[in-house]
C-alpha cells in the first residue's frame, strides 16, 4: 500500500530501515540472549540524526511529530523491538518537555536529546500503582528553591541509561491525582539512584529499572507545567506516545511476518515448499491483512494527532490496542508457520513472540485502553442526547 509519505518521511523511514537491517539485525539475537543494552546502536542512531525527528527545529530537531517518531520505531522494531525501545522510551521521556516545558527547559534539554547525546525516560509506575496510576506514593516536598523527592519508581524503561527523567510525584496528597506534579530529574543528582534491574521475558535488550529517590533535592525550575498538573502531564503524554507503542508492535509483527513468509518458501515437506499448502497460505494471508490494517490505523492516528485534532485519547488507544493485539497474533502464527524451527532460539520469531507481549501491557494495558475507549463512547452518547 502506498501511504504517500512526504519525501522527508520516506527518507526517515528508509534510513531507519537501513540501520535496522545493517546494524540491528546482526546483533538482535545476541543482545536479547545476553540482555545487552545497545549503546553501540544508540550511537549509530545519534549519528544518523534520527533522535531529532520529532523535536522542534528551534531545539535542533527536524520539527516532525509523532508520525516521524513512529516511522523510526516501526522500522527499528522490525529488527528488534527491544533495541527500538531505547529510542521509543526516550520519546516517552521527552514528550512531557516538548508539550509542557518552558522555553528554558526546552532549550536546556531538547538539543542534547535531539542529537542523541542524552537518552530520556519516563517514571510514573510504582510497585502499588500500575493501571491505577493515581495510587503513586512518591512525594515531592517544596523547600525554598527546591523540591525534595522521596519514593521508588518501578519498571522504568531506560532507567540507569538515560540522563533525563520525567518523574511524576505527589506534591499534595490530600488532593489525590490533582495533587500530582511532574519534574525533570537529571541522572547524577544526589539522592537519585537506580535499584533493581529486571530480568524480562522479552525486549531483553531494553533496560527496565527502579528509580530510587532518597531526599533527592532538585531545583524548583525543574517543575514541569504547574503544581497539581502532574497527572495531566502524564495522561497527555501517553495519549500522544501510544502510537509509538503501536508502531513498535507493528514493526515486530512485520518482522515476524517477513521471516515466516521467507521460510515458507524454503521449507520443503512432502516434496513441496510448505507455502504450497493452503493452511499455510491462509495463515500468511491473515497475517498480511492484519498488519496492513494495523499500519493504516497507526499511520492515520499519527496524522490525526500531528494534524492538531483536539480529541486524541480514544484514537490513540484504539491504535495501540489493535496494533499490539495484531503483533501478538501474528508472532504466534509466525512461530506456527515455522514449526519447531520457529520455536528455536536460532530463528528470530521465537524472540519476536516474546517481544510482542509487552506491547499489550505497557503504556496502559489493553484492558485499560478498552476502558478509555468505552468511556469516550459513552460520553459521546450523553453529549448527543
Amino acid at each position, binding site marked *: 500500500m502506498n501511504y504517500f509519505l512526504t*519525501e*522527508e518521511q520516506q*527518507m*526517515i523511514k528508509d*534510513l531507519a530501515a*537501513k*540501520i535496522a537491517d*545493517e*546494524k540491528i539485525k546482526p546483533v538482535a539475537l545476541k543482545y536479547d540472549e545476553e540482555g545487552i543494552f545497545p549503546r553501540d546502536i544508540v550511537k*549509530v542512531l545519534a*549519528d*544518523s*540524526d*534520527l533522535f*531529532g*525527528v520529532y523535536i522542534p527545529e528551534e531545539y535542533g530537531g*527536524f520539527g516532525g511529530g509523532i508520525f516521524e517518531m513512529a516511522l523510526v520505531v516501526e522500522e527499528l522494531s522490525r529488527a528488534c523491538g527491544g533495541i527500538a525501545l531505547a529510542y521509543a522510551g526516550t520519546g516517552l521521556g521527552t514528550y512531557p518537555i516538548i508539550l509542557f516545558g518552558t522555553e528554558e527547559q526546552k532549550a536546556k534539554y531538547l538539543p542534547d536529546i535531539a542529537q542523541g547525546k542524552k537518552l530520556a525516560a519516563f517514571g510514573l509506575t510504582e510497585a502499588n500503582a500500575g493501571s491505577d496510576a493515581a495510587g503513586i506514593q512518591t512525594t515531592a516536598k517544596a523547600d525554598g528553591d527546591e523540591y525534595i523527592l522521596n519514593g521508588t519508581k518501578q519498571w522504568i524503561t531506560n532507567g540507569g541509561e538515560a540522563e533525563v527523567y520525567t518523574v511524576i510525584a505527589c506534591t499534595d496528597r490530600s488532593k489525590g491525582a490533582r495533587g500530582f506534579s511532574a519534574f525533570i530529574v537529571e541522572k547524577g543528582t544526589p539522592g537519585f539512584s537506580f535499584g533493581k534491574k529486571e530480568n524480562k521475558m522479552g525486549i531483553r535488550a531494553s533496560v527496565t529499572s527502579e528509580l530510587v529517590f532518597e531526599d533527592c533535592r532538585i531545583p524548583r525550575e525543574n517543575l514541569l507545567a504547574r503544581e497539581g498538573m502532574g497527572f495531566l502531564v502524564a495522561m497527555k503524554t501517553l495519549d500522544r506516545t501510544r502510537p509509538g507503542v503501536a508502531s513498535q508492535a507493528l514493526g515486530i509483527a512485520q518482522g515476524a511476518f517477513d521471516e515466516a513468509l521467507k521460510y515458507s518458501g524454503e521449507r520443503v515437506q512432502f516434496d513441496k515448499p510448505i507455502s504450497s499448502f493452503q493452511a499455510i497460505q491462509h495463515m500468511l494471508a491473515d497475517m498480511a491483512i492484519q498488519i496492513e490494517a494495523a499500519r493504516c490505523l497507526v499511520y492515520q492516528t499519527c496524522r490525526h494527532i500531528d494534524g492538531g485534532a483536539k480529541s486524541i485519547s480514544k484514537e490513540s488507544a484504539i491504535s495501540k490496542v489493535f496494533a499490539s493485539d495484531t503483533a501478538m497474533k501474528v508472532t504466534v502464527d509466525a512461530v506456527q508457520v515455522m514449526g519447531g524451527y520457529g520455536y528455536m532460539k536460532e530463528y528470530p520469531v521465537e524472540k519476536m513472540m516474546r517481544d510482542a507481549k509487552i506491547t499489550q501491557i505497557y503504556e496502559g494495558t489493553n484492558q485499560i485502553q478498552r476502558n478509555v475507549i468505552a468511556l469516550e463512547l459513552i460520553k459521546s452518547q450523553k453529549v448527543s442526547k
Partner: protein
Amino acid sequence: MNVIVCVKQVPGTNEVKMNKETNTIIREGAEAIINPFDTYAVEEGVRIKEQTGGKATVISMGIPSVAELLRQTIAVGIDEAVLLSDRAFAGSDSLATSYALSKGINKIGDFDLVICGKQAMDGDTAQVGPGLAEKLGIPHTTYVRKIEEIRKGYIRCQRMTEDGYEVIEMPLPAVITVVKEINEPRLPSLKGMMKAKKAEIRIMTADDIGADKDLCGLKGSPTQVVETFVPVHDVNSEMIEGTPGEQVKRLAEKLLSMKFMTVK
C-alpha cells in the same frame, strides 16, 4: 587538506549483462551501486577532511544517471560531487579512464590527495588508480590499509601485502588506493541526506575539462576485448568415502584406471 575521491558506478547484481558487439558491460537498466571498494575511499576522504579541515570532492566518469548515485556520497559527508559525462567518454578502458579522470582532477585543482578504491567490482583491473597517478605525474601507493600520518606535503601509510604490510612515505599530492580494512564506512545521516537531495552535481564534458577526444573513450582505448563469456563450471566431482586406508585404495585404483598413474 583537500581530498578528491574517485568513485565508479557498477552493476549491483552478480548477473552482469554484456554488449556482445562492443564487449562492454551494459550499464543501463541494471540496478546501479557505487563500487563497494570505493565506499571505503569515500569514508577515508571524509575522515581526512573532518580531521584536517578542507574539502572532500568526489569525481566519477559515467552516464548522466550516475549523478544521482553521487548524492549518496554527499549524504555521508562529501562536500561536492563532479561527474564527467560525455559521449566521447563511452567505451573507455582503464587507460582512457585514467586520462579523463586526470583531466577532471586537474580542472578541479588544488588537491592534496586522491583516493581510489583498490579496484572496481566489475572490471577488477585495479589499474585506474596507478594510471591516474602517472597521468597526473605524482606518486602513488596501492592497497593502503591505514594512514599513519598525513599533513601538508606528507603522507605515511601502510600498504597491505600478502604476508603483512609495508610502511610507505610519500610527498603530497599523491594518489592512494585503499582496501576495505582501512575503515568502516558510516551510514548516511538525515542532515546529510537532506543536503544530498538539494546538492547540485557538477557535470563536466570532455570540452569542459580540456580533454583530447582522441585519448578518450573507445578511440583512446588500446585494450581490445576479443571475447567475453561466463566460464562454465561443469566439473563432476566424486566423493571417495571410507576409512583413510580404503580411501587411498580406491583413489589409487581410480588413478590407475584413468591412466594418471602406472605401477612399475
